[in-house]
């Protein structure tokens, strides 16, 4: 045996290798994304880290007794090791523990609820499936804080919280719930869990839908009991999806701000994100340390996630052959299970909508009599004269609302197109070069924006844009939105591409079909619904995003959510509820239209 020894590097050889490497579109894509994502995600990270060791002007410099702009470990010492007045405990350790509890609980709730529904919908002959899968994504479409608001207004009573008024549950049904149910860790985790349960539904459902039924059938033949099959066979198969869900929900819950404020503050329950926000006012250095801790946690789970899902990498399901899935018959249990599910969904997904509608037509809070109702907040005129409140016209007659709606939609569509397309390209590159270091870098980088709390992400981009004269207005918002929501698109892109056997593309390559045509004519049409979901998820998230954009919008009337927030802050709850409903209806309409036209929908999203 004479093994060939690598020869010395000659110039032509190196050039040839480089040319061969660059002739593969996957390599070029990965290279471009490596460069741009480094700039767009690592730069913010680095600048954020530099904030944690910089003394800022104002109160920070005064408290630290150090010159503004100097480098110091003061913030770390102060946040982590100040015993006086229990400072560290109050500002960091206690909220940190609360954050852990709430985020873990929210993840578990999301996985259990979303996973169970996913199982029922994909693997059983459950009744009302269509309704269930359509309505299930509603809580995700609503801004999470509106769900929190709903929870409070529905369940509050005079024995708990502010102890001032009764919600519908107490006033109509005379059920006075205990405080732990309405305020604090439990409702925060539950609301976040419900809000993010669609992630579990999408990811776990994706696996269950594509899972080879033979695996379960084989066990059935071996006379394994049904629960045992689920426990020993189905669960391990969906474990990677469950971990992915855990990662997504945990990271999101950790940086969720409004829900803990609404449901936590009456009982003085604080989490890291609320501390981060209030520290940002006077002590940005400490605030950025908290951001750093959040990111660190996200990265740790991401690494764990990667370790577990690595073995899944060779998992391809679309090869050119197709199989059948047998559905479990629920039998007698079908109707009760379906009914319970429908009722639960009505409660968490439809009732809030009705409440928003109701709250948008009553004049004085808490009075639900017809005499107290008006459509003025939707279509009224001269309101400031008659009601001495709010804008002069109802939201549907207000050109500012229509402008904001147009802007929001334009922004959401742009972000969706950019993020979605990039997601497909990242998916293509990563799947083609899977196992290579370049691919895993790009894969991780493209997920990274997800781990950055929106508020901090927006602040850093604002600072970044100040040095780039042309990065302004719509362009800036679109860039931030696209980067922030790339993770959704890249996840669905990577998953869709991994499911697609390489031969499918090679079959076209060999007949000389150029790359763009392979993408447009072969790859995209085959995984159309997965890819389109990669467009939809950023769109939905963008439509209801607030904290990411709040610092970047030219005026508060620019997008619907800042307008909504402003109305709520001013106490014009009716306008706020009306706009909230408008957002949800628009998103539902878009989702419905896309679904009817192409068959794609959010619920087919991340996992494909």
């Amino acid at each position, binding site marked *: 045996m004479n093994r060939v020894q690598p020869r010395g590097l000659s110039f032509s050889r190196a050039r*040839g*290798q480089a040319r061969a490497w660059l002739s593969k579109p996957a390599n070029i894509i990965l290279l471009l994304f490596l460069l741009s994502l480094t700039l767009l995600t690592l730069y913010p990270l680095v600048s954020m880290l530099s904030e944690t060791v910089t003394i800022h002007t104002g109160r920070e410099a005064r408290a630290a007794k150090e010159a503004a702009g100097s480098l110091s470990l003061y913030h770390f010492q102060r946040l982590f090791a100040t015993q006086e007045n229990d400072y560290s405990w109050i500002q960091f350790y206690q909220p940190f523990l609360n954050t852990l509890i709430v985020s873990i609980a929210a993840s578990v709730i999301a996985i259990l609820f979303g996973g169970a529904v996913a199982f029922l919908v994909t693997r059983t002959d459950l009744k009302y499936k269509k309704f269930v899968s359509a309505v299930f994504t509603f809580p995700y479409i609503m801004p999470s804080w509106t769900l929190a608001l709903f929870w409070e207004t529905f369940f509050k009573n005079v024995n708990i919280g502010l102890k001032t008024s009764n919600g519908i549950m107490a006033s109509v049904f005379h059920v006075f719930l205990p405080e732990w149910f309405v305020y604090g860790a439990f409702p925060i985790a539950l609301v976040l869990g419900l809000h993010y349960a669609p992630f579990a539904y999408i990811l776990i459902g994706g696996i269950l839908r594509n899972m080879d039924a033979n695996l379960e059938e084989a066990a059935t033949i071996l006379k394994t009991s049904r629960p045992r099959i689920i426990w020993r066979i189905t669960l391990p198969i969906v474990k990677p999806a469950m971990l992915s869900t855990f990662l997504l929900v945990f990271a999101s819950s950790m940086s969720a701000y409004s829900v803990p404020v609404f449901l936590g503050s009456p009982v003085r329950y604080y989490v890291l994100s609320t501390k981060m926000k209030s520290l940002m006012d006077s002590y940005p250095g400490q605030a950025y340390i908290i951001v750093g801790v959040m990111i660190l946690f996200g990265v740790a789970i991401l690494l764990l996630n990667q370790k577990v899902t690595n073995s899944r990498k060779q998992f391809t399901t679309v090869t*050119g052959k197709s199989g059948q899935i047998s559905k479990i018959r629920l039998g007698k249990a079908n109707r009760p299970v379906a009914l319970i599910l429908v009722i639960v969904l009505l409660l968490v997904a439809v009732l809030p909508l009705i409440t928003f509608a109701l709250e948008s037509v009553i004049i004085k809070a808490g009075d639900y009599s017809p005499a107290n109702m008006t459509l003025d907040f939707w279509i009224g005129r001269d309101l400031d004269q008659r009601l001495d409140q709010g804008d002069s016209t109802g939201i549907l007659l207000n050109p500012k609302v229509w402008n904001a709606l147009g802007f929001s939609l334009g922004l959401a569509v742009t972000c969706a197109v950019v993020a979605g397309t990039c997601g497909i390209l990242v998916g293509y590159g990563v799947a083609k070069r899977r196992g290579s270091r370049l691919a895993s870098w790009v894969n991780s980088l493209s997920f990274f924006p997800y781990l950055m709390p929106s508020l901090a992400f927006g602040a850093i981009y604002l600072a970044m844009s100040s040095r780039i004269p042309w990065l302004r207005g719509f362009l800036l918002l679109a860039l931030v939105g696209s980067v922030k929501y790339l993770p959704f698109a890249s996840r669905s892109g990577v998953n869709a591409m991994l499911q697609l*056997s390489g*031969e499918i593309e090679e*079959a076209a390559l060999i*007949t000389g079909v150029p790359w763009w045509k392979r993408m447009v004519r*072969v790859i995209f049409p*085959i995984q159309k619904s997965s890819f389109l979901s990669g467009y939809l998820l950023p769109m939905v998230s963008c439509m209801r995003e607030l904290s990411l954009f709040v610092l970047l919008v030219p005026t508060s009337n620019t997008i619907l959510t800042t307008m909504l927030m402003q109305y709520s802050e001013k106490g014009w709850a009716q306008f706020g509820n009306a706009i909230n409903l408008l957002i949800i209806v628009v998103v539902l309409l878009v989702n419905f239209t896309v679904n009817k036209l192409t068959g794609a929908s959010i619920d087919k999203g991340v996992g494909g």
Partner: protein
Amino acid sequence: MPAIRLKNVAKRFGKFVAVDNLNLDIESNAFITLLGPSGCGKTTTLRMIAGLETPTEGTITIDEKVVFDADKGINLPPNKRDVGFLFQNYALWPHMTVYQNIAFGLENLKWSRERIRERVDELLKMLKIEQFEKRYPAELSGGQQQRVAIARTLAPGPKVLFMDEPLSNLDAKLRMEMRTELKRLHRDTDSTFVYVTHDQLEAMTLSTKVCIMETGILQQYAPPLEMYNNPANLFVADFMGNPTMNFVDGQLQEDGMLLFGGIRARFASQEKLPAGRRDVVVGIRPEYIHIDPDGALKATVYSTLPSGMETTVKLDMQGMQLTAVVFGDVDYPVDSMVHFSFHKTAVIFDRETGKNIARGSLNV
């Protein structure tokens, strides 16, 4: 001039060597099979020739045109190599009808619509799938999908056709049928076929020449029957033929006598035997062990495996297991005593290196 020439081709994935220093000449209009167990590098080799994989070292020439040269930095993309590729999983595009699947590549070659229509019709007819023209792949059976895949590959009329285990997803009967079709197709299309399989029978029946590989290294490259009768080494000998060759440890004496399993036989060969005594492995094909009452040797029957056309008989000769094949349906009672003799050829291999020393006949 060979249609395809591989010179010192190697492929490494990091530290793992998939293909090592491969030299191969494939003649025009040949039907070559790359054969070996899974992971031996055969698919990688095929993909390198097609341009789907970039070799680490070496040069590849197709039709006198250098398509790859690591040193000169030449690397033609697959579509510039004028080749066709038939994939293991068919790789039919699920969103296109049968017609569209076949026509897509031709549209891309800027053929006129009429010409495409004509060509597709021709192929549909040739592969007997006319009635499925408007169907989608999911609406076809495995065999039909395979035919569509073949039609699609043949459509542009490639000079060289690569096939990567194209029949492995079919059932035994269909596979037999498709083999016949492929061999016929090879004649009709007048092109060079390179075929990857792990099924030695497929290689034997289809190809004009077989290239057998193991762990990235070429073991033997020869016409199938030559490979069968005169395998280059123990690996090839073992891989080719079913039931497999009998291997018995033995010793070759200075005088050309062979001692194995208590048998002393004269080994007559036209090749020059190495001088001195040496440890060898004697390889005897089952069909060259003849069971007949006049045989000089005796053994007990361990078990009989009739399959209709032939019967495999496992013999036990003082602890030495031998497999014999008898034509027709013959039943020997278990544990009965039979006589047998060696016919035709045996091959002796060096026990240390496994290499073929010589082929010859055995006279007990």
